């Protein structure tokens, strides 16, 4: 039963990726003119155009080209960037590593901190601490990422002069230097992600706390601390893992803004630059990478939810 559900869910994930690929491919088709015209630019004579189209296989009907493109994607044959003509896997290699580094550090810091804060808020609902945490996170999730980033630059880099305003990635002698130069993007993303996780953790634990068996424990006279740590927490683990996976998926959107504002040489910055120059092969590849990550994380989130709640394994 469980295996069937996982397969079903994986099937939905694959279907989503398929929709993404169709959408991404359709994006290129809407463009007036084709890749051949863009590549030749001013030198586009009818003969040259025809030759290049023949060479690139643009003469074939769209469904055929779509299948070929899909095959290329699957075998990691990413093709050439239109701007500059360098191969895309070269462009992407180090960028992908940088983005993964940033996300990993953010996750390592934000997840534990926000779980603790979320639990604290849920342990003392209605207390001053809870009110401060809830209203602060409400404000943080209501403002755009770039607002937090700008405010941090203003305070930490310009007023206090503690940190560099731009993330330089060059040679590093120590981990400390690496962290220092990445501090601003890390801090911004941590704040954005933490605010979400704190709110969701709090809501999840409070939801568990309102269930009958907790009421039973309270009536039995179990101390509050023990109820939360021994009774509620274990039942909340599944939903909390779900929350974490969902929020790591949100990182995908956060990273786009943060990399741009701090000029961080990551994949998202590359994609935004690609959109600005309308370099479709580059945008397609980046979009596929981001969407695949996102779909995989959502899949993990769903799995966690199913593991923790047997009722989800048997859909009505």
């Amino acid at each position, binding site marked *: 039963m469980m295996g069937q559900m996982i397969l079903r869910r994986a099937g*939905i*994930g694959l*279907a*989503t990726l398929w*929709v*993404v690929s169709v*959408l*991404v491919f*359709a*994006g*290129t088709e*809407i*463009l007036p003119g084709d890749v051949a015209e863009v590549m030749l630019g001013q030198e586009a004579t009818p003969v040259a155009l025809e030759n290049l189209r023949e060479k690139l296989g643009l003469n074939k009907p769209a469904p055929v080209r779509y299948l070929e493109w899909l095959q290329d994607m699957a075998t990691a044959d990413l093709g050439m960037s239109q701007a500059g003509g360098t191969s895309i896997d070269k462009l992407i290699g180090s960028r992908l590593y940088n983005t993964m580094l940033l996300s990993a550090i953010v996750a390592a810091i934000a997840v534990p901190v926000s779980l603790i804060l979320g639990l604290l808020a849920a342990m003392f609902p209605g207390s001053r601490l809870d009110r401060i945490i809830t*209203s602060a996170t*409400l*404000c943080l*999730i*209501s*403002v*755009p*990422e*770039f*607002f937090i980033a*700008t*405010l941090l*630059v*203003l305070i930490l880099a*310009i007023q206090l002069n503690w940190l560099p*305003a731009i993330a330089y990635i060059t040679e590093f002698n120590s981990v400390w230097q690496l962290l220092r130069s990445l501090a601003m993007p890390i801090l911004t993303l941590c704040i954005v992600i933490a605010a*979400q996780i704190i*709110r*969701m953790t709090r*809501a999840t634990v409070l939801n568990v706390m309102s269930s009958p068996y907790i009421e039973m424990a309270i009536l039995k006279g179990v101390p509050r601390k023990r109820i939360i740590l021994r009774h509620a927490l274990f039942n909340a683990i599944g939903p909390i893992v779900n929350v974490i996976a969902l929020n790591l*998926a949100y990182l*995908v*959107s956060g990273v*786009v*803004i943060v990399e*741009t*504002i701090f000029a961080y040489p990551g994949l998202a910055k590359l*994609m*935004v630059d*690609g*959109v*600005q120059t*309308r370099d*479709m092969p580059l*945008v397609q590849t980046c*979009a596929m990478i*981001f*969407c695949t990550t*996102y*779909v995989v994380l*959502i899949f993990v989130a769903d799995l966690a939810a199913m593991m923790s709640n047997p009722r989800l394994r048997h859909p009505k």
Partner: protein
Amino acid sequence: MTESIATSPQFDELPDAPPKRRLKLSWSGKLAVCVVSFWIVIAFIGPYISPYHEAEFLEEDLFRVAGSDEYPEVEFQGISKITLLGTDYLGRDTLSRIMWGARTTIGISLAATLLAYFVGVTLGIAAAAGGSRLDAMLSRVNDAFLSIPHIMLGLIVIAAVGSTIPILIIMSGLIYATSVFRIARSLGQEIFVSDYVEAARVRGEGLWWVITREVLPNVAMPLATDFGLRLVFVILFISSLSFLGLGVQPPMADWGSMVKENLSGLAYGALAPMAPAFAIASLTISINMIVDDISAHSGGKLAKRLI
């Protein structure tokens, strides 16, 4: 005898309708209502009362100290009587651009949210009212779009067709219609299986009658609260795109792109990048505070959707 029955105190005290529960706003909610109304008023009358045009470059003469021959730079001027919030990176008045930008930012976001509601509610109710096949089809397609990050969808569309205001509105409207569809569908389904809808069907009312008289009035209130939330998301989404330089194009003033344009002014302590950022924050935080109050009032059920 009959008179005494009619005027018996027992009947006098019976109210003929349940007392209306009045929405009581907390002090933060009241403040939030003031802030939101302020921006709405600015969006309407801003361009008429602003000191300068949004694209007007201020003359150096304005900043010249009387009697001196020096012509100061007009870029990133500080607070003065001439420009209350200073000037931006091209020497335009920040205050005027914020007032013009209110119309652009709020207008586009509102239009996109309305479109999202029109499409989302229509399809959502159709999915709830129609057969299981229609429902399955619409839901599958919707789920697929919902599991693509919004910003990615935005980037792909803009890379393909470019960025103009109609495209921004239609794109954001359709992207956020996916979330509205889900809510409208689940609310609609709940009502379609209720006893009073069954009663209406039994007495022979048509589908259209049921939708307009029973379903829509009952989904209106929860959807109205959700509208505020969705509007915040759309404002954040569009300002983020503008901030990336892919949304509203210059010289039009838009709060998101204003932050982006003037980012270099942060180092000079200019107000030009911070003022529009605070404008967005004040608007979105206020809307969320109002939604928070309303959902607390309606029993906290909607609070779950806030996170």
